[in-house]
């Protein structure tokens, strides 16, 4: 059904949509614009125009180190979550075994488990057992919360996957292993990429687990921003967030451009 926007209902919808979009997008805009102000505190609309807060953020070694720490942890967590997620999604969709539904629910449960509970539990677990050291404790914790995202996305993709493709590959002489890597993975790749990106983002901006489990001395970006905010709200903190938003937009733009290019080539 289409509604003409000139009709009364259309006008109401238009207003509602505008309000919703403004509500969602305005904070992002504020974060990007506010650090442009010259004042030593965050003001909106900004007074004066300067890039010094952005410069300060870029020059602050703490943030740069924290971004690298977060990137490393997010990449490692996303990749491990990707492998575990796909393997378990494959098993859950291909094999019928007792407790399959229970296992599926269990795999997805970190999505509904408060991260504070998980953080406390894992902290106790790691200090008691002394298992894992350095960044691996946080990575392990992030894998727990990231895997459900990969699983969530790959389960329906694998369920919809045409089984006869696997059979065709087997029939042509591919071992089960080759079948998985040469046929299943390439075909379901878009879904898996989406799940892995979700996992990456989840790990990258995760705060609670990082507060409890990050290596002392090398805090992740969310932890660094969090402590900076607690110490005093200097506009360079907002500039860091602004930079992240700009970087995200740049990546999205690049992705769409590449897609458009590829479609043109086909």
């Amino acid at each position, binding site marked *: 059904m289409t509604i003409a926007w000139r009709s009364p209902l259309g006008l109401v919808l238009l207003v509602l949509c505008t309000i919703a979009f403004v509500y969602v997008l305005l904070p992002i805009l504020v974060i990007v614009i506010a650090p442009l102000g010259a004042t030593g505190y965050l003001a909106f609309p900004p007074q004066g125009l300067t890039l010094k807060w952005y410069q300060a953020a870029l020059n602050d070694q703490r943030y740069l180190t924290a971004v690298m720490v977060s990137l490393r942890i997010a990449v490692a967590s996303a990749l491990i979550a990707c492998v575990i997620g796909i393997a378990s999604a494959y098993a859950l969709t291909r094999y019928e075994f007792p407790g399959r539904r229970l296992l599926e629910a269990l795999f997805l449960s970190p999505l509904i488990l408060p991260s504070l509970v998980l953080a406390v539990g894992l902290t106790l677990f790691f200090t008691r057992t002394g298992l894992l050291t350095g960044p691996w404790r946080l990575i392990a914790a992030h894998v727990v919360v990231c895997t459900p995202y990969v699983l969530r996305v790959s389960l329906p993709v694998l369920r919809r996957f*045409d089984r*006869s*493709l696997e*059979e*065709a*590959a*087997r*029939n*042509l*002489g*591919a*071992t*089960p292993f*080759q*079948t998985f890597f*040469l*046929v299943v993975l*390439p*075909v379901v790749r878009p879904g898996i990429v989406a799940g892995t990106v979700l996992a990456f983002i989840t790990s990258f901006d995760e705060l609670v687990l990082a507060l409890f489990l990050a290596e002392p001395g090398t805090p992740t970006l969310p932890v660094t921003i969090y402590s900076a905010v607690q110490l005093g709200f200097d506009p360079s903190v907002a500039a860091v967030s602004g930079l992240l938003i700009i970087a995200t937009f740049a990546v999205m733009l690049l992705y769409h451009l590449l897609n458009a290019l590829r479609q043109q080539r086909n």
Partner: protein
Amino acid sequence: MDIVLRQLRKTYGSAVAVADLSVTIPQGKMLALLGPSGCGKTTTLRMVAGFIEPSAGSIHVGDRDITALPAHKRDTGLVFQSYALFPHLSAAENIAFGLRRRGVAKAEREQRVAAMIGKLKLSGLADRLPRQLSGGQQQRVAVARALVINPSILLLDEPFSNLDAKLREGTGLELSRLQQEYGLTSIFVTHDQSEAMSIADVIAVMKDGELQQIGSASEIYENPANRFVAEFIGRANFLPGRIVAKDGQSLEVALDAGVTVLAQSAETLQPVGRAIALLRPEAIVLVEPGTPQTLTGRVEAVSYQGATVYIHMCLADGTLITCSATPEASRRVTVGERIGLLPVAQRIRLFAE
């Protein structure tokens, strides 16, 4: 290589999908597994391909027992109903897939793929992805992919069901020509009797997991083993009656419709008792009404099919009957007219009621 299925059986719990099927397909012949859906034909094919493990029995190709072999070691070429082309690979890469798995060197691989592309009239389409091909082209890629590996046997799972009627016949003949050229022993699964009759050497009719009859198209059409086969293959008129006498191979039947005819039966029937007679449309000759030893029918409809014309008639007791005639003969027939129907004795088959 010939294919031998020995006492092949598949059960799911208490449900029997295939019941002790024993069939031998001689080298170079094509067997059609024919039956309605759920008759076990696809299960049988999938057991031969190695996708389903038989509950009992064995499968032999040549002198090799392949029952326990995993699917990828069976060396069977399978054309899927949905074609199952790999969507991320081009037509040429799809065809080359099996050769790559067999470690065929690049030069030979490219040459064999190119030969297949030429043979199946796919030139110019080699670099297209499956979704950029029409249904008929996709089907030819699927056939090329199965043949290029020089499989020891060829399996076809309803390969024409997604093609339109006109394309179907041409593709069927093309496929049967290729199968003969390669001398491939084949199993062909279908629910379409005309498809089975036109391209298979031997037809196995199945129902509820059980083999009903196996034989050439003409054997099955002319001498069906039971009423199910008679009904499933070709058009059939069934007229109930009572067996009154037995004379050697022939049974004398008094049809309820009013005439007494001689009939043969593949079943062992008691010389006295109820039975049902099969009259194919061409086993009834149109004659002047009132001729002795004929039935009288009123013409309900005339259905012109080109080479044959089907005349649908209603008997005095309300039974509907269809007979075939040449277009010339059918021109003398008008709807509503009364006609005499003479059953041809040699063509009548009898079944238990």
